[in-house]
C-alpha cells in the first residue's frame, strides 16, 4: 500500500450526501444498500416465523378458531415464505455480500455493468414495495403458500396478482445481478488470475449466476401466465378449462428447484473461504470443490420433479427424477468431505466466522442426509408435505444458507465497514443461534415422521408427541430469534466503537484483503492490480 494520497480515502468518504448513495454506481455502496434491505426482509420474515410458532405452540393456538382468523395463519406462513425466499435468501449472499466482495476478489474496479447493478437494486426495491403493497394495501391476504399452486391461487381472493408481479420484478433484479457477475468473472479478472486460481467463492457465485440467468426467466413466464390466468382466464393451468395444474408445478419448480441452489451455492463458497482461512491451510481438493459447484448448477436443472412425486406427475417421470436427485447429492457430499479434510492438520482458530462455518458443517450435514429419505420414492410417500420436509429444508436453507450468510457477514464485516465487532458477543450469539436452531427444527423431524401435515394451523391435541414437539419447536424459535437479535446488535454496535479494523484481520490470502478497510473508491490503489499469489497459499 502506497502512502496516503487522495486515492486512499475510503469509499464512504469519497463522496458525501444522500444523493451520492441514490445515484451511486459503486458496487460497494450497492452491496451495502442490498445488505440493509435484505436484512430488513430477514427481520420481516422472521417476525412472521415467530408468529407462526406462537400459534402452533399449543394445539388451540393463540388465534381464536373462527373463520376470519384461519386465513390469518395461512397468510403468515405464505408471507414468511415469500419474503424469506424472494426478498432475503436469494439476494442475501449474491447481491449483498457478493456485490461487495466479487469485484474486490477478481481485482476489478467495479462489476462489468455498474448501471445495471444499480438498476438491479432499484428493481429489488420496487419489487419489495409492490410486495409490501400486497401485504398492507387492503387486498385480502395471500394464502397460497409461496408456491402459488393453481387452481387455488386462481380461485382465492388474495393478493395473488400483486405478489406474483412483485416476484416477477424481483426475478429481473436477480437476472441482472447474475449477468453482471458472469461477465465480471469472465472479462475482468486481474492479470494472473486464471480460472483455477480463482477463490472458491467466485466459483460458487459463478455457478449461482448461471442458475439465475437460466432459471429465473422461466419463473417470469410462469408468473405472467398465472397473472393471465387470473385476469384473462387463459386456462393453460386451469383444469376447468382443459388445462393442467400439474404443468404449473413443472414450470414453477423448473425455476424454484435451481433457486434452492441459487440460495445454497454462494453459502458454500463462503464456507470454503472461511474454513481455509481459519485453518491456515490450503483448501483440500480445490478443483473438486470448484467443479462440484458447476456440477451442482447443471444437475440442479434435472431434478425439479422430486417436488412432484405425489403431485399427480407420472410415476415414470418420478423414477427418473428420483434417480437424478440422488446424483445431485454427490457433489454436495464431496464439498462437505473436502471441508472436513481441510481441517485435518490445520492450525485452527475459532473466531466468530469460523464458529458459524463449523455450525454450518454440522447443520448442513443433517440437512443433506435428511434429504435422502425424501429423494427415495417409497419413503417420500410418508414424508411428502409433512413437517419432515419443513425441517429438512430449514436445515438446508437456514442451517446452510443463512448460517453461511452470518459467517460471511462476520468474515467481511471488517472489510465492509472498517470496524471490528466484539468477538465474545459474536461467539455467544453464534452459540445461541445454533442451539435455538436445533431445538426449533430437530423436533419437527419427529412431527413429520408421525404424519403432521404442513401448513396446518392447529393439530391433534390428543397426540402428546405432537404437542410436545410443537412446544419445543416454538421455544426454540424464540431462542433463535433472540440469538439473531444479539448478532445484529453486536454488528451495529461495532459501527460506533473505535476498534478500527486492519486491512487483513484474518490473515486471508485472496485479493479482496489487499485493499484497505474499507476499500478506496476504485477498490485498489494500483491502476491495474495484479494477483500476486494463489488463493489459500498459507505457509
Amino acid at each position, binding site marked *: 500500500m502506497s502512502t496516503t494520497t487522495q486515492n486512499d480515502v475510503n469509499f464512504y468518504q469519497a463522496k458525501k450526501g444522500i444523493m451520492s448513495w441514490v445515484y451511486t454506481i459503486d458496487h460497494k455502496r450497492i452491496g451495502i444498500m442490498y445488505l440493509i434491505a435484505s436484512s430488513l426482509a430477514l427481520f420481516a420474515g422472521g417476525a412472521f416465523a415467530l408468529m407462526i410458532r406462537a400459534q402452533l405452540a399449543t394445539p388451540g393456538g393463540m388465534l381464536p378458531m373462527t373463520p376470519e382468523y384461519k386465513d390469518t395463519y395461512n397468510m403468515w406462513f405464505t408471507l414468511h415464505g415469500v419474503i424469506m425466499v424472494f426478498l432475503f435468501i436469494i439476494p442475501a449472499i449474491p447481491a449483498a455480500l457478493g456485490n461487495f466482495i466479487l469485484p474486490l476478489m477478481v481485482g*476489478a*474496479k*467495479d*462489476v*462489468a*455493468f*455498474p448501471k*445495471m447493478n444499480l438498476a438491479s437494486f432499484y428493481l429489488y426495491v420496487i419489487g419489495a414495495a409492490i410486495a409490501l403493497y400486497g401485504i398492507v394495501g387492503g387486498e385480502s391476504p395471500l394464502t397460497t403458500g409461496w408456491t402459488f399452486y393453481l387452481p387455488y391461487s386462481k380461485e382465492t381472493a388474495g393478493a395473488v396478482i400483486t405478489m406474483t408481479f412483485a416476484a416477477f420484478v424481483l426475478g429481473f433484479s436477480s*437476472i441482472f445481478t*447474475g*449477468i*453482471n457477475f*458472469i*461477465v465480471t468473472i*469472465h*472479462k*475482468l479478472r486481474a492479470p494472473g488470475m486464471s480460472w483455477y486460481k480463482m477463490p472458491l467463492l467466485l466459483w460458487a457465485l459463478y455457478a449461482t449466476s448461471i442458475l439465475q*440467468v*437460466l*432459471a*429465473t*426467466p*422461466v419463473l*417470469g*413466464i*410462469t408468473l*405472467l*401466465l398465472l397473472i*393471465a*390466468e387470473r385476469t*384473462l*382466464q*387463459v*386456462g*393453460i393451468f386451469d383444469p376447468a*378449462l*382443459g*388445462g*393442467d395444474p400439474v*404443468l404449473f408445478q*413443472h*414450470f414453477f419448480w423448473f425455476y424454484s428447484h435451481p433457486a434452492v441452489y441459487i440460495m445454497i451455492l454462494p453459502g458454500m463458497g463462503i464456507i470454503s473461504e472461511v474454513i481455509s482461512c481459519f485453518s491456515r491451510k490450503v483448501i483440500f481438493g480445490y478443483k473438486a470443490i470448484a467443479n462440484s459447484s458447476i456440477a451442482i448448477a447443471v444437475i440442479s436443472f434435472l431434478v425439479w420433479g422430486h417436488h412432484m412425486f405425489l403431485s399427480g406427475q407420472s410415476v415414470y417421470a418420478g423414477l427418473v427424477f428420483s434417480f437424478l436427485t440422488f446424483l445431485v447429492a454427490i457433489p454436495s457430499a464431496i464439498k462437505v468431505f473436502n471441508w472436513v479434510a481441510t481441517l485435518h492438520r490445520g492450525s485452527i482458530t475459532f473466531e466468530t466466522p469460523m464458529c458459524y462455518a463449523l455450525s454450518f458443517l454440522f447443520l448442513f450435514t443433517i440437512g443433506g442426509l435428511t434429504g435422502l429419505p425424501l429423494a427415495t420414492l417409497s419413503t417420500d410417500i410418508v414424508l411428502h408435505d409433512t413437517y419432515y420436509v419443513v425441517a429438512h429444508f430449514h436445515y438446508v436453507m437456514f442451517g446452510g444458507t443463512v448460517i453461511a450468510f452470518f459467517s460471511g457477514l462476520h468474515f467481511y464485516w471488517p472489510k465492509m465497514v472498517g470496524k471490528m465487532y466484539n468477538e465474545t458477543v459474536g461467539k455467544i450469539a453464534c452459540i445461541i443461534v445454533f442451539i435455538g436452531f436445533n431445538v426449533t427444527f430437530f423436533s419437527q423431524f419427529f412431527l413429520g415422521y408421525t404424519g403432521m401435515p404442513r401448513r396446518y394451523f392447529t393439530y391433534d391435541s390428543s397426540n402428546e408427541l405432537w404437542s410436545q414437539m410443537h412446544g419445543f419447536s416454538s421455544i426454540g424459535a424464540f431462542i433463535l430469534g433472540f440469538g439473531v437479535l444479539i448478532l445484529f446488535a453486536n454488528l451495529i454496535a461495532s459501527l460506533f466503537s473505535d476498534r478500527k479494523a486492519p486491512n487483513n484481520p484474518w490473515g486471508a490470502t485472496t485479493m479482496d484483503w489487499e485493499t484497505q478497510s474499507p476499500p478506496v473508491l*476504485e477498490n485498489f490503489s494500483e491502476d*491495474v492490480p495484479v494477483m500476486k499469489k494463489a488463493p489459500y497459499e498459507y505457509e
Partner: protein
Amino acid sequence: MSSKVDTNKFIPRFVSHHFSNADQEFESCKLGMWLFLLTEFMLFGGIFVAYVVFRTWYPETFESGAEKLDWKMGAVNTVILITSSVTMAVAIREVQLNRKGRALALLLFTVLCGMGFLVVKYFEYNHKFELGIFPGDFFSFMGDHMSNEHLYFSIYFMATATHVLHVILGLLAILWVSWRTAKGEFYEAYYTPVEMVGLYWHLVDLIWIFLFPLLYLTK
C-alpha cells in the same frame, strides 16, 4: 485504423473506467447481451413447452385452431421481419464502415418494417376479436370449433402478445440508436449499442421463425 476516423464527423468516446481497453468493454457488453438473450430464450421456452404439451394432448384442437389463423398474413409478417433483420444486419456493417447516412437510412427502414409487422398484427388481432376469438374463458367463437379450442388461442395470444411486446421494445431501441447514429456517436471503433440492439432485433426475428410454422402452418 483509427487514423481514418474523421473526428469532425464522429464524437470520440472513452472507455468506462473499470475496463482496461475498448476490446474488453465491447466483448463484455456482447457477452452480457448474449446472456440476456439467453434469458429471453428461456422465457419464450416456457410458452413453447406449454404449446408442445397441449399439442401432444389435443392434436385435433390445435389443427382446428391453426385453420382459423390466416397463414397468408403470417407469411407476410415473416417476410417483413426477415427483411428487417437483413437491413438491421447491414446497418451494423455500414456503421462499422463509418457510413453514417446509409446506416441511418437502413435503421429507419428497419423501424418501418417493424411498424409494418405491427400493422399486420393489428389487423389479425382485430379480425379475431370480431369473430369472438379471445383467449381462455372469453372465447366466444360461434362457428365450428373444438370444445377446448380456447386453449390453442390462449397460447396463440400469450405467445404473439409477448412477441409483439418485444417488437415494440425493439423498435424503441432501434429509434434510440438511430438518434445516436444521427448525432454521429458511432463509428468503427465504437458501435456497441448498435450491435447490441441488432442482436436483440435478430432475437425477435428468431422467435417469429418458430412461432410462424408452429402456430400458422402445422395443422
